[in-house]
């Protein structure tokens, strides 16, 4: 493969860097969001004395 060209060409790597960071930050954000939404929906069904952290 002649991909050594890509190695030399620094600007060609930016899309990969951006994609990697978007995956990690986006993934964490989406997971956190989903968890918080689930938590809120469930919290309504549970009396406050059983939510020890509140």
């Amino acid at each position, binding site marked *: *493969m002649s*991909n*050594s060209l*890509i*190695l030399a*060409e*620094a*600007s*060609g*790597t*930016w899309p*990969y*860097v951006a*994609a*990697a*960071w978007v*995956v*990690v*930050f986006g*993934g*964490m*954000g*989406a*997971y*956190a*969001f989903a*968890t*918080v*939404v*689930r*938590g*809120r929906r*469930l*919290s*309504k*069904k*549970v009396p*406050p004395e*059983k*939510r020890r*952290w*509140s």
Partner: protein
Amino acid sequence: MTTETAGPFGASDSGPTSTGSRTTMILGVVTLVALGVLVLFGLILSPADENQGDAVRIMYVHVPSATLSYVGCFLTAIGSAVFLWRKSRWWDLVAYASAEVAALFTAFTLVTGMLWGRPTWGVFWVWDARLTSEAMLMLLLLGYLAVRGIAADYGVRAKRAAIVGLLLVPNVFIVRQSVQWWRTLHQTPTLSLSGAEIQGLMLFSLFTGFIAITLSFIWMVIHRFRVAWLEEQVDAEGLDTAIAERRAEGVVS
């Protein structure tokens, strides 16, 4: 509660109907700041590597994700062990929450590893020892989560999951060892900086990455734990009424 606070991290403000608390709100804010600092140093202030160019910036999220995927896996094994030993539901849920978050970080590690591999080696995947081990860790965690997802009584599910969770650690060691021996016969490249020491701003960026990603991990495990806790409570809620209804059946018949 107003809905516009429900951003990814903003929702950690402690309301009466959320998994947030004062502590996690502070933790959430600190995490957000750390992630901001990570973006600043990782993407802007740190220099490009001499050999790898800007691709090195993937390292600042890849390496901490990989480390935390193993940390999560160990936490699951510890939680499982304490659950089996003390019958503690609290630890069982710790095991569950950390396994799920660990699976998320394993996915990050795999995706960022492939995105790093493409500009470095020219292909998304090579059978690199570390990447392969990480892929096997993903499969092991998916197995654990499959056991968590079975439709069965709490006791049955928790016990079986705990045995599988406890075995994660020996499995990870044996898998890593075998994959390493398997690959060293062929001398393939490993994702790392070629020879050069990581220094100065690059080292600091990596350090920032560890802090920010670790804080995110802790925040996620705590919230996932609380969701699992709430699920347990919702399930247990109806028991008193169920007993009353059950007795009423007998009076009618």
